[in-house]
């Protein structure tokens, strides 16, 4: 059996190079291979998820020309949201880059539980397959929104996608939660217990802090979704009334459910849903810190303040979920609490922003592709964050709720910010993954297309939302909304540009894997621990245990005008 293939003699040397194709590339225990596997799976799911958006954007710009029924439309937006959040951003940023970076940056040989790590990946594969398969069952995929609010999600006959499609959606999400939780346990155990000699907590790169914090957030908030999903499944298939209210009429028939409360589901969903934003955004910010420091050739400004701000954001992120539900029915005093606590998040976020920008102060910046994406991330956090101020204010949210203002805002945060960080990380660590660098020209083209495309799409959507354009509509026919809806062709054209740019990335990624220019051990002259390992590093990362002797960002140090020092240097 390929899995038990063992190299006893290699073990003594530290490097373990499984020689069989299956044990090396498919059922590998190596965190770096597993990280790349996640990235490739995310690429495939990204094509599907983003492809859906191209389809429904076509419908929005030129109604009736996309070969799309209203049922297709709601299914496409539901599945686009689900796939992009859970199977693209989570898998690429959290699982993919997280797996790749964590042991390398803390000086461990692998994750604490390599077998569990492999199982996490091979658990998510059937999850992704089930999610995709749900398109092809009777009635199509889930269509009740990525939030899966009951009763649409709880009554199998409520809408075409509420039947088998919704069941498969729940199953795939359950698999995702199991896989992600196992991954989170591994992350925390690895970071807490497996750090190399000298790698104290306050010497960890900020990337590691963000993965640590987001794993803790995930472990504390996903159980709420698990509980909600169990109750939803019982409502769907066990005849209970946790979320299904009395006197519900479906196709002219009175349902037998009594007393359930759909609002409860919303609370439970957003108790996960809001921390999930930070689970995905924080690691992107962490990666940006590393990339900024390396290319500004300056230590991160306010390392301790940033770590403090990250923890503050994580804590506040867990107690503000209600701001997603201002108009769902809420005691005004409670609304005030959620408003104020949400606005307080601005403070630590502003602190992070200052530290990000301060790192650039008087720097001689190297404008390579990872750096451009890191700078793009700062812009996306800032632009998206401003919209958040309006949405956090309950009174303003009464108008903005469920409009394209919200769509534009959260895409800038959870979409553009996360993906900018992901791309910065992929371009930055690609040499460590494959021993080759990605093509710079294609990379810059990818950046410009992504930056221009996404910013036009999502900033314009803010204005469309202010103009009263509500989300989840198949077509805008009312007179009052026509001026806002007239911008749809423009938005769609730039959405195509953004999508097309990702194709450039995919070509670059797979082409460079085999034909990119050979990279040295430390092509960016960076200081953190992963750059002391070979490019690419074998299974086990180092032959000798690395010993950490300094802070992660030792730029501006070093003798002979070199101007930087590795974390392992004396």
């Amino acid at each position, binding site marked *: *059996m390929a*899995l*038990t*293939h*063992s190299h006893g003699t290699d*073990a003594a040397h*530290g490097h*373990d190079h499984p020689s069989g194709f299956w044990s090396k590339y498919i059922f590998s*225990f190596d965190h770096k291979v597993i990280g790349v596997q996640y990235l490739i799976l995310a690429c495939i799911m990204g094509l599907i998820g983003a492809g859906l958006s191209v389809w429904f954007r076509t419908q929005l710009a030129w109604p009736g020309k996309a070969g799309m029924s209203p049922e297709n439309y709601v299914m496409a937006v539901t599945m686009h949201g689900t796939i992009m959040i859970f199977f693209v951003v989570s898998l690429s940023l959290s699982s993919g880059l997280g797996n790749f970076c964590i042991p390398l940056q803390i*000086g*461990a*040989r*692998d994750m*604490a*539980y*390599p*077998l569990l790590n492999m199982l996490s990946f091979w658990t998510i594969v059937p999850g992704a397959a089930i999610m995709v398969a749900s398109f092809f069952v009777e009635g199509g995929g889930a269509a009740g929104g990525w939030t899966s609010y009951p009763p649409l999600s709880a009554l199998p006959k409520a809408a075409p996608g509420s039947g088998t499609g919704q069941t498969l959606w729940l199953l795939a999400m359950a698999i995702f939660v199991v896989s992600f*939780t196992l991954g*989170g*346990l591994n992350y*925390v*155990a690895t*970071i*807490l*217990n*497996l*750090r*190399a*000699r*000298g*790698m*104290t*907590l306050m010497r960890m790169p900020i990337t590691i802090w963000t993965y640590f914090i987001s794993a803790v957030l995930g*472990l*504390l*908030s*996903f*159980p*709420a979704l698990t*509980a*909600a999903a*169990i*109750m939803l499944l*019982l409502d769907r298939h*066990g*005849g*209970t*009334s*946790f979320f299904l209210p*009395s006197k519900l009429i479906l196709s002219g028939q009175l349902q037998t459910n*009594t*007393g*359930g*409360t759909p609002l*409860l589901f919303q*609370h*439970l969903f957003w*108790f996960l849903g809001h921390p999930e934003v930070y689970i995905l955004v924080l690691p992107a910010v962490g990666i940006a810190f590393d990339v900024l420091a390396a290319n500004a050739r300056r230590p991160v400004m306010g390392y301790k303040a940033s770590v403090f701000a990250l923890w503050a954001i994580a804590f506040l992120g867990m107690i503000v979920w209600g701001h997603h539900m201002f108009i769902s029915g809420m005691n005004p005093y409670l609304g005030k609490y959620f408003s104020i606590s949400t606005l307080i998040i601005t403070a630590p976020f502003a602190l992070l922003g200052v530290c990000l920008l301060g790192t650039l102060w008087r720097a001689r910046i190297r404008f390579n592709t990872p750096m451009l994406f890191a700078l793009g991330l700062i812009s996306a956090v800032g632009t998206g964050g401003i919209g958040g101020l309006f949405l956090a204010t309950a009174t303003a949210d009464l108008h903005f709720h469920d409009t394209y203002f919200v769509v534009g805002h959260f895409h800038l945060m959870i979409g553009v910010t996360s993906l900018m960080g992901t791309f910065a990380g992929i371009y930055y660590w690609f040499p460590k993954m494959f021993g080759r660098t990605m093509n710079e020209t294609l990379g810059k083209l990818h950046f410009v297309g992504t930056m221009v495309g996404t910013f036009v799409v999502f900033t314009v959507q803010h204005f469309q939302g202010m103009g009263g354009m509500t989300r989840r509509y198949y077509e805008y026919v009312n007179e009052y909304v026509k001026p806002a809806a007239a911008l749809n062709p423009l938005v769609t054209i730039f959405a195509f540009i953004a999508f097309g740019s990702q194709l450039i990335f995919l070509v670059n990624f797979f082409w460079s894997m085999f034909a990119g220019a050979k990279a040295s051990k430390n092509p960016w002259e960076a200081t953190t621990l992963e750059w002391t390992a070979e490019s690419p590093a074998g299974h*086990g990362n180092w032959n000798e*245990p690395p010993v950490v002797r300094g802070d992660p960002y030792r730029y501006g140090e070093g003798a002979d005008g070199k101007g930087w020092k590795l974390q392992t240097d004396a």
Partner: protein
Amino acid sequence: MLMKSDAWESRAWEGDDLPGGGRSEANRTVVFLMIAGAVMLFTTFTASYLVRREAAGWGKVSLPAICWVGTAFLVASSVTMELARRKTASARLWLGTTIGLGVLFALGQVEAWRQLRASGVTASSGAHSGFVYMLTSVHAAHLAAGIVVLVVALRRAGRGSLGGCAAWWHFTGAAWIWVAAVLTVF
């Protein structure tokens, strides 16, 4: 498969000067995190319970008496688990007793469900009965995981600490008292 994993674990860096304590400390971290996650799960159910009981169709039922016998078994099993952890020489005996008591509790649960069913109480007959079946089942799943872990620990008794197993087992006991108290008091 497991062989390879074990081989890997032994190849992580070792030494007293590792700032995080090394691989041997990781199990403790994981058990702690799992308990934290499970606490969040039961907290969510409890919060949902408190919200839902205010609405129509609550129809409270009481737990069958056998559940309280089961509670006694679980409390006793926590004591024997502690003995297993502290008295290395007779660890196997006490571990075996703990597993036995756990299985007895589980059998008691099955009997409790049977009695509830026989008296016409199903998951869909009322909101409270839905919670009764759901919470006891979710707890039973956590207990079953604990029994599996203890069986593994029994097979390798004498090697390594039982601290993690004990922490999880005490947690399932505490979670049961929590669940039973919520279902009875509110």
